[in-house]
């Protein structure tokens, strides 16, 4: 994966929707847009590490928006990404309780595009917490659930990837892992309450 293909905005949206081309699309996003977004974050008081983290969250949010069919193409991808990054950074600043001056600057510069994007990325914090919950699972369970629910592999294909004897063993193990994950979610009632919005 040395050089990502050149994508137009429309081609990039299509590539994000396809499992086979998603890696290329992500690489293209990094090659084309990370610089401009990072400059913006650094200009508003972020460190290089902040810029890196914000851009990663921006890419995640953008892919989520595209996959849900919520990117309508009214703004260019570059403008849209910067709007997402601004929203994420604004929220980050609020969390860190940094100087009110910078926040005011943001408020003054906030346009309609950013407000629209703000509503689209409202559940980002909840998603982050959800990832933390999954992180509490053991590696074998995480791997198994990942292959089934993210890679969409069949039980037969999973037998090829993991050291389980047959499909029935995989099926049983997957059921137990899912139970384990749900138990962890239930152990965190506040997370379950917050995240119930996602499944609505």
């Amino acid at each position, binding site marked *: *994966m*040395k050089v990502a293909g050149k994508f137009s905005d429309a081609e990039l949206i299509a590539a994000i929707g396809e*499992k*086979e081309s*998603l*890696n290329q699309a*992500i*690489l293209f996003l*990094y*090659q084309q847009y*990370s610089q401009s977004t990072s400059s913006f974050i650094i200009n508003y008081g972020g460190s290089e590490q902040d810029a*890196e983290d914000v851009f*990663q969250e921006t*890419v*995640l949010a953008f*892919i*989520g928006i595209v996959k849900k069919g919520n990117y309508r193409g009214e703004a260019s991808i570059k403008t849209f990404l910067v709007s997402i990054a601004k929203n994420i950074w604004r929220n980050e600043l609020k969390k860190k309780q940094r100087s009110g001056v910078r926040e005011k600057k943001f408020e003054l510069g906030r346009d309609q595009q950013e407000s629209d994007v703000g509503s689209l990325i409202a559940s980002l914090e909840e*998603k982050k917490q*959800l*990832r933390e*919950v*999954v*992180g509490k699972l053991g590696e074998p369970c*995480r791997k198994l*659930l*990942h*292959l089934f*629910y*993210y*890679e*969409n*592999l069949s039980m037969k294909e999973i037998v*090829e*990837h*993991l*050291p*389980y*004897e047959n499909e029935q063993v995989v099926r049983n193990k997957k*059921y137990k892992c*899912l*139970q384990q*994950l*749900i138990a962890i*979610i*239930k152990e965190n009632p506040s997370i*379950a309450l917050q*995240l*119930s919005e*996602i*499944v609505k």
Partner: protein
Amino acid sequence: MSMNHEQLVDQFDKTFTDKSSGEQAPQFLSDAEAAREWSYLRMAVDGVQETGLYEQVASVKTQWMAQQATAATSQSGAVVWHMSRIVMRVAACILILAGGTAVYKYMSASANHLYADYSQPYDLNTSRGAATRDEMDEAYRNKNWAGVTELFKTKKDKTNKTYFLAGMAALESKHYDDAIGMFQQVIAANTQSGSDYFEDEAEFYLAMSWLARNEVKEAMPLLDKIRADKNHLYHDVVVRMSTLDLRIAQYKELK
């Protein structure tokens, strides 16, 4: 309609594979408890998918950063050529002052030395796949490299594991081009499928194969990537590698 939890999960998986993904609890779940469990299932799977996407983005980001680092190294190499003669003289003086140790370091640092120092046999016993022992595994454990290669050729269902073992056999037999091809196949298959089966192993031994072939330039992006990834199986090994030796070997290669 009442169903036990296992049946509920089966039903959920069916709607999941039908791509309807259970956005809402289906109508037949009149039972409030079942509907609640359905929501928890949906939440759990959302979490798995969210984590999967996060890891995929993080993985591409790491590769992109490794590319950036390599590009920066090449640029700094180009800058060296444009350094003024005075700066070059100062650099030469510093080199001379560094004395015999530095000279020895320079003379001894090479891709071959790095390969000899840091490559390690791959022990199948400590790896995954113990439940699927077969002839190829046995040949590998017995260090029958020719046997591994022959069995690979006749193997009908080739997997990342068989490609990897064939690559290791080629590497052990000093057939570096063949080894490189096999390891690249594993990485390409994973890029295609979005999986990471034998990915870490293939990346490390691909880098070792490039070093064995005296191609430091090809090995560097892989080594940078492994060094940047604390969860990589071979992170600790690569961190122990002398960056100075690598740079010297790379410089020698560019000369």
